[in-house]
C-alpha cells in the first residue's frame, strides 16, 4: 500500500485496449477520458492517457465546454517537465482541463520579474513553487551553532516568502509551495537532530517555518513528508535521475505527485468530496448483523478484528468532527441496521452522527442517488466505502461520478486507505466545519416538523427564523472564501475568489458585501449566504450571490433581496443588475432573478442571462424571517 501506486483507485481490466483506442481516435468523449483517469495508472499509462487527452482536446476544444479550464505554472529549481502529464491527468480525474507551463529550471525569479516573460503571457491561475534542498540551503554544515542554523532557516524562509509576494504582485489566484525534500545524507547518524546544522535539522526547521509563513500569507503547502515517510524516500527520489537529468522527483512518483498537487487545486475549486457514505456489514463491524445478531458481530475489545473496526469508526468520527457529512447505505432491514448504533456498547458512531441513514433491499446506486437528494448535495461530492467488490463495481458503473475507494481486505487498513485517497482535502478548517454534522441533523428535525405542519406558512412561522447579517469582516473571511470556492448549486455566477480577492472587495467602500447567518428554533445554521454587489455608476451589479442549499424553501432568498435593495439604496444606487451564468450544477437558480421580480435584459444561446430591478419601484417581500443587521456573528 504505497501512495505512489494510487492503490485506492480501481485497476481497469481493459486499460491497454482503451488507451490504444483513445490514442488512435481524435474524438474520444471527455467523460471516457475522465473515467480512465479515475482508474489506477502507472507513470507510463499516465503519459499515454495525457497524450490521448491532448490529441482530443485539440479537436474538441471549444470555449463552451461544460468543464472548467485552469492554467497552472510550475516554477521549480529542478526539472519538472516529467511531472506535467501527471498534473494534467490528475486534473482530468477531477473533471478539470488543466493547461500547464513549466519555467526553465532555476529561472523562476527572472520569470516572475519580467513583464514580457512567457509566464506573464501565460497568465496562470495557479502557481506551484518547488525548490530543492541544495538550492535553498547549500550543504549541511556540522559547525553551525544553534543560533546560526536558526538564522539560516529564517533567512531562507524569508526568501521563499519574498518569492510568493513577488508572485502575488503580478498574479491573482492560488499559490502552492512544495515542501523541501529530505534528501541530505546524515552527517553523524542517529543523533542527527541534535546537530543544528545537519540536513535533517535544517530541512525540518525550514519546512516548519514554511508552514507557518504559508498560513500568514495564505499559501497552500504541498507537503510530501507524509507520502515519503510512508513510501520511503527511494520511491519518490532517485539520486541517479537527480544527477542525470536534475529530476528531484522520480517519474515513478509523478502520478502520485500530480494527484497530491491537484488535491489542493481541487479543494480551491470546490472539487473536494463532502460526504462519506458507509456500508455497514464488514465495513463498520465484522460479520453480518442480520445473520450474526448484536452479540455475534465483531466489534470492540476481545478480538483484533473487532478493534480494527473500532479504529476505523474512530477515524470516521474524527472526519465528521471536522466537517465531513456521514451517511449510511446498507442492504439490511432498517431495524437490524440501526440496532448496533442504538444498542452495541462498542459502537463509536451513533445514530446522531449519521445525517442520512438508508437501509433497505434496493440497489445501492439508487439509494446513493437518494442520499444526495435528501442531503441536497451534488452526487459527485459523495464517497462510497464498501468492503464488497461487487457493490463497489455496480456503483462505479452506475454512478461514475461517485468516488469508490478500493478498500483493502483487512479492516485495519480502511482508515489509511481513506486518508491516502485524500477525498476530503480541506485547505483549512473553520468553526463552521466543527458544527456541520449538528446542522444537518437539525435539518432532519426541521423536516420532521414540516411534515407535521399541513400548511407551509404555519411551518415557517413556527421556525422563528432570524436572518443575521453584516458586511464582510476579518472574522468571517475564511468561511466566506470557503463558501465562495465550494458552493456549486445555489450560485448565480460561480465566480471563485481567493482571500486576497475578497479583501480587495472589502476595501471598496461603495460595494455591498453581505454575510448572512440564519438562526431558528433548532439552532444556528451558520453562514448560509454571501452576496457581493459592485457599484457601476448608479447601478449595483450583483457580482456574486450564493447560498447554502440547506436553507432552501424558507424565504431566505426573499428576505435577502429585501436586504440587498435596502443596502443598495443606502449606497445611492438606482437599480440592481443580476447575472445568471449557467454551469453544469447551478440550474436550480436559473429563474432566481425572475422569481424575485427582476426584468430580463438579455439572454444568450448558452443560457446566460442578465436581469434588472428598479429600486424606486421595489415593494419588499413579506416573509416570516426577522432581519437583524450587524449583529455579532
Amino acid at each position, binding site marked *: 500500500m504505497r501512495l505512489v501506486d494510487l492503490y485506492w483507485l480501481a485497476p481497469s481490466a481493459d486499460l491497454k485496449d482503451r488507451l490504444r483506442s483513445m*490514442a488512435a481516435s481524435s474524438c474520444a468523449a471527455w467523460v471516457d477520458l475522465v473515467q480512465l483517469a479515475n482508474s489506477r495508472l502507472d*507513470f*507510463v499509462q499516465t503519459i499515454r492517457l495525457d497524450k490521448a487527452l491532448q490529441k482530443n482536446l485539440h479537436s474538441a476544444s471549444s470555449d463552451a465546454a461544460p468543464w472548467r479550464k485552469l492554467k497552472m505554472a510550475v516554477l521549480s529549481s529542478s526539472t519538472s517537465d*516529467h511531472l506535467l502529464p501527471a498534473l494534467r491527468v490528475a486534473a482530468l480525474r477531477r473533471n478539470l482541463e488543466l493547461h500547464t507551463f513549466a519555467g526553465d529550471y532555476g529561472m523562476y525569479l527572472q520569470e516572475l520579474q519580467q513583464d514580457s516573460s512567457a509566464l506573464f503571457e501565460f497568465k496562470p491561475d495557479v502557481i506551484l513553487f518547488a525548490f530543492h534542498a541544495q538550492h535553498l540551503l547549500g550543504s549541511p554544515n556540522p559547525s553551525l551553532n544553534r543560533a546560526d542554523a536558526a538564522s539560516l532557516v529564517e533567512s531562507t524562509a524569508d526568501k521563499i516568502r519574498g518569492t510568493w509576494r513577488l508572485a502575488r504582485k503580478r498574479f491573482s489566484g492560488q499559490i502552492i509551495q512544495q515542501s523541501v525534500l529530505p534528501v541530505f545524507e546524515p552527517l553523524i547518524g542517529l543523533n542527527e537532530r541534535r546537530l543544528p546544522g545537519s540536513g535533517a535539522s535544517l530541512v525540518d526547521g525550514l519546512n516548519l517555518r514554511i508552514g507557518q509563513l504559508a498560513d500568514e500569507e495564505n499559501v497552500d503547502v504541498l507537503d510530501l513528508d507524509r507520502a515519503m515517510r510512508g513510501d520511503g524516500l527511494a520511491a519518490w527520489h532517485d539520486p*541517479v535521475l537527480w544527477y*542525470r537529468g536534475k529530476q528531484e522527483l522520480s517519474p515513478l512518483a509523478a502520478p502520485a505527485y500530480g494527484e497530491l498537487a491537484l488535491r489542493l487545486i481541487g479543494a480551491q475549486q470546490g472539487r473536494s468530496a463532502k460526504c462519506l457514505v458507509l456500508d455497514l456489514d464488514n465495513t463498520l463491524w465484522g460479520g453480518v448483523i442480520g445473520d450474526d445478531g448484536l452479540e455475534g458481530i465483531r466489534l470492540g475489545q476481545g478480538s483484533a478484528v473487532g478493534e480494527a473496526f473500532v479504529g476505523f469508526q474512530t477515524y470516521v468520527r474524527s472526519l465528521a468532527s471536522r466537517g465531513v457529512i456521514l451517511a449510511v447505505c446498507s442492504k439490511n432491514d432498517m431495524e437490524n441496521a440501526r440496532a448496533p448504533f442504538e444498542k452495541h456498547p462498542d459502537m463509536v458512531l451513533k445514530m446522531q452522527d449519521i445525517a442520512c441513514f438508508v437501509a433497505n433491499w434496493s440497489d445501492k446506486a439508487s439509494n446513493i442517488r437518494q442520499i444526495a437528494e435528501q442531503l441536497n448535495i451534488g452526487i459527485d461530492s459523495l464517497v462510497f466505502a464498501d468492503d464488497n467488490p461487487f457493490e463497489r463495481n455496480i456503483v462505479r458503473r452506475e454512478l461514475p461520478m461517485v468516488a469508490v475507494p478500493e478498500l483493502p481486505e483487512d479492516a485495519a487498513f480502511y482508515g489509511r486507505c481513506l486518508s491516502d485517497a485524500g477525498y476530503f482535502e480541506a485547505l483549512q478548517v473553520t468553526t463552521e466545519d466543527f458544527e456541520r454534522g449538528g446542522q444537518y441533523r437539525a435539518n432532519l428535525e426541521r423536516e420532521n416538523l414540516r411534515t407535521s405542519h399541513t400548511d407551509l406558512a404555519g411551518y415557517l412561522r413556527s421556525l422563528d427564523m432570524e436572518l443575521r447579517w453584516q458586511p464582510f469582516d476579518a472574522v468571517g473571511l475564511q468561511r466566506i472564501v470557503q463558501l465562495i470556492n465550494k458552493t456549486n448549486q445555489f450560485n448565480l455566477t460561480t465566480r471563485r475568489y481567493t482571500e486576497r480577492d475578497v479583501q480587495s472587495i472589502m476595501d471598496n467602500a461603495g460595494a455591498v458585501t453581505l454575510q448572512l447567518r440564519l438562526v431558528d428554533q433548532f439552532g444556528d445554521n451558520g453562514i448560509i449566504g454571501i452576496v457581493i454587489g459592485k457599484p457601476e455608476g448608479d447601478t449595483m451589479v450583483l457580482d456574486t450571490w450564493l447560498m447554502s442549499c440547506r436553507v432552501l424553501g424558507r424565504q431566505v432568498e426573499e428576505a435577502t433581496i429585501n436586504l440587498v435593495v435596502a443596502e443598495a439604496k443606502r449606497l445611492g444606487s438606482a437599480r440592481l443588475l443580476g447575472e445568471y451564468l449557467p454551469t453544469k450544477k447551478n440550474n436550480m437558480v436559473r429563474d432566481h432573478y425572475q422569481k424575485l421580480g427582476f426584468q430580463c435584459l438579455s439572454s444568450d444561446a448558452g443560457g446566460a442571462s442578465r436581469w434588472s430591478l428598479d429600486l424606486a419601484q421595489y415593494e419588499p417581500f413579506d416573509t416570516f424571517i426577522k432581519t437583524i443587521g450587524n449583529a455579532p456573528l
Partner: protein
Amino acid sequence: MSNATILSDVREIIADVLDQPDLKIDRTTTAEDVEGWDSFSHINIVVAMESHFGIKIHTSEIEELRNVGELVDIVEKKLEAKKPG
C-alpha cells in the same frame, strides 16, 4: 527469462512509453532510429524498465548503452544475478 522474452518485453515497454503500439525494434535498434526517443523519453524508458523487471541500472551502465541489444543483455545479466543460490 530468455533473452528473446526480455527483448519482447523491452519492445513493449518502449512502444508504450513512446505511444507507438506497432513499433518495430530489434537488437541493433538505437535511439536515433526511433522517432520520439529523445533524452526525456530515454529516462522514462529506463525507469519503466527498472520498474518492470525489478532491477536497477547503474548510472555508468546507462551512459554506455549503444543499442537495444546491449540494454537487453544488461537486463538479462541483472535478472541472472537476482536468482537465489
